[in-house]
């Protein structure tokens, strides 16, 4: 009897295994693609607008059927959804991710489809770079682009007797202002990211600002470059602010969201960040728009700033027809408002109708002739206090944009999180020693990734 039961169980197991592994198959005359990024129903006007574009697109392209979803890219569910075949044909990822995704071949090469994109050859190369592979092929199209800057609390500046319209333009001034704010108001003058890889990410930004790089080419491969002067300079600055000036508070171990929450609550006066932080600042953490000040990143000699934003990418499981349809949709929905003022204005109005920050200054994708009218249109319908972004907007155009470290960026960031944490939580931590330890962690990973 036990044998019967065992056989039955084994049979059921096989059945279950078959059920688990079953693949969904679909097929009719039209090319069907799923597109993520539909605004949720809580943003009624924007969602209606999105669906209107979907309908118009389907009308203009009768052989394509779109299936919109309101899914957002989440690094925690990405792998499972990809494996299960549930990933949308078109989805958007933050600028930190395309290099790792394209290396793992988890996003599709769309170089061949680029000629169908309007103004496809007019892109500012700096904006395309983050989604361009080492082989020169293109794996994604930008949908938003920002350069890291300095976010500051205008009210605290005022309370400390500093001019909110004159944010610091050098790191010496940042240090000086942070100290004044901490002394006058008791609020930490400067906050630094240090967990979930954002510590390494922002140390990278600070290194770029001081004219350095995290990785450098040596022969045909990338090697660690953060043991050179600029990173050390960045860490020494943090160390001095934290321990000599006591202008960074005792609470550290924060990622970007933690820091922004504290910033929105008036518990930190300055942090590094791009204008896209304004949206979370206002909608997620309930910050007062009037206190938000956005300055460009102070740069040392030869310095540049880190490029951020989002990129629309295509599922690696898409067929060539689906890929072509996907790129067509990306161009139609995401890129058109970047070169055509009419949809740009419309999109901004709909966002404002949903009480979402609309018309937050971004980096132009093309030259002045194409992008200029679009930016004008967005500014006209914007509902954000644009004057608080003035010092950013007037400066950022002249800055050099640098992309993320090309190889194993997240692994490098993780190792540097520890370095930032050491400098911020341990008074006797020596930046050079910490960087040496990080280099020992990162070097084998770089070697392995470039095998």
């Amino acid at each position, binding site marked *: 009897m036990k044998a019967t039961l065992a056989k039955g169980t084994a049979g059921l197991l096989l059945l279950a295994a078959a059920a688990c592994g079953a693949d969904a198959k679909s097929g009719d005359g039209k090319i069907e693609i799923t597109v993520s990024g539909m605004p949720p129903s809580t943003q009624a006007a924007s969602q209606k607008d999105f669906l209107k574009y979907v309908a118009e697109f389907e009308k203009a392209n009768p052989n394509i059927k779109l299936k919109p979803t309101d899914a957002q890219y989440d690094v925690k569910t990405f*792998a499972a959804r990809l494996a299960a075949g549930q990933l949308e044909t078109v989805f958007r990822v933050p600028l930190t991710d395309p290099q790792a995704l394209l290396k793992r071949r988890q996003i599709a090469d769309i170089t061949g489809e680029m000629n169908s994109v309007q103004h496809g050859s007019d892109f500012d190369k700096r904006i395309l770079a983050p989604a361009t592979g080492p082989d020169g092929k293109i794996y994604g199209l930008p949908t938003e682009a920002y350069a890291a800057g300095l976010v500051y609390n205008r009210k605290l500046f005022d309370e400390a007797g500093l001019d909110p319209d004159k944010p610091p333009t050098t790191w010496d001034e940042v240090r000086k202002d942070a100290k004044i704010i901490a002394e006058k108001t008791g609020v930490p003058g400067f906050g630094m990211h240090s967990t979930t890889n954002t510590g390494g990410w922002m140390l990278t930004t600070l290194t770029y600002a001081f004219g350095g790089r995290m990785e450098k080419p040596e022969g045909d491969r990338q090697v660690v470059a953060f043991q050179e002067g600029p990173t050390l300079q960045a860490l020494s600055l943090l160390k001095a602010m934290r321990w000599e000036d006591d202008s960074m508070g005792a609470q550290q171990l924060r990622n970007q969201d933690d820091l922004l929450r504290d910033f929105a609550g008036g518990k930190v006066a300055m942090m590094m960040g791009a204008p896209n932080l304004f949206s979370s600042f206002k909608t997620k953490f309930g910050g007062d728009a009037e206190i938000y000040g956005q300055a460009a990143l102070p740069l040392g000699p030869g310095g540049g700033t880190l490029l951020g934003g989002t990129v629309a990418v295509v599922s690696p499981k898409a067929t060539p027809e689906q890929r072509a349809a996907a790129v067509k949709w990306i161009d139609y929905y995401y890129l058109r408002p970047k070169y055509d003022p009419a949809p740009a204005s419309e999109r901004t109005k709909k966002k404002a109708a949903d009480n979402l920050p609309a018309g937050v200054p971004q980096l132009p994708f093309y030259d002045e002739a194409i992008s200029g009218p679009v930016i004008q249109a967005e500014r006209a319908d914007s509902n954000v206090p644009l004057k608080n972004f003035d010092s950013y907007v007037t400066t950022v155009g002249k800055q050099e944009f640098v992309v993320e470290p090309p190889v194993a960026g997240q692994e490098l960031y993780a190792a540097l999180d520890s370095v930032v944490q050491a400098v911020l939580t341990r008074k006797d931590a020596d930046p050079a020693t910490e960087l040496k330890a990080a280099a020992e962690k990162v070097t084998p990973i770089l070697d392995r990734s470039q095998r």
Partner: protein
Amino acid sequence: MTAVLERPATSSRSSRSKARRKRSFATAFFLAPMVLVFACFSWWPIIKSALLAFQQTNLVDPAQFVALENFSNLFADPLLGIAVRNTIWFTALALIFGFPVPVFLAVVMSELRRGGGLFRVLVYLPVAVPPVVAVLLWKWFYNADYGLFNSVLGVKLPWLQDTNWAMPSLVLEATWAGAGGTVLIYIAALTAVPNELYEAAESDGASIWRRIWHITLPQLRGVLLLMLLLQIIGTFQVFTEPFVMTDGGPEDSTVTVLLLIYRYAFVYGDYGMAAALSVLLAVVLGVLSAVYLRATRTWSAS
């Protein structure tokens, strides 16, 4: 589960074979949904992940067998040793502080003549709070600038902001969050201790400590040993606390094995390496449990 299956088999050995077959069919029939669910959501993933430990995959192309490469990469990671050390440290601290607390609370509460119900609710309450919520709450308590603990205690302790303090702080939260369930189990076990034993001891003039030491604890032995094993297994898999509160910091002082597995899989996209470490953890816990059960078999039986 096997114990449940075998029982009808032994009891029906004397009955006729036809009836037996009928009953076994019925058993299989009623068992089927459960087996299916377990197979689909538990055993199949276990088999798949064990296989994954020897593969490299991007979840798009067919997975490739790479023999032991995942394991060699794993042992080359300097963080592995740190994570193992941290996890053992967490387990040890949780044993030293977290294990006696519920025993103590249970004994005290079972001695109470009044208000026992209220205390049981109060002790169990933290278990009812969703873990992530509790951890986030404690993260605020621990805030070094504006936190509740520092302002109530009037001190300037670093809590999570210091390599030496971070782990004990996590253990404190975990003990608070986990004690309730264990306390209830101990209280239930205490009600099974015959009252005559206490009465006899009392009439012999035994003090309260002697009664606890010589009657309560020996009578609880079986439950204590089981809870100890469950706690060791549970604490080896600590994840929520370091993930939400510290992300392994400061300076990797709270990176645990499970946090490392999470990073391999979801931050670095190296699913093979994550599976390899998971398999290793399962093997270690399996061996640990076997050794423990063998070593304590005589104690709990007597």
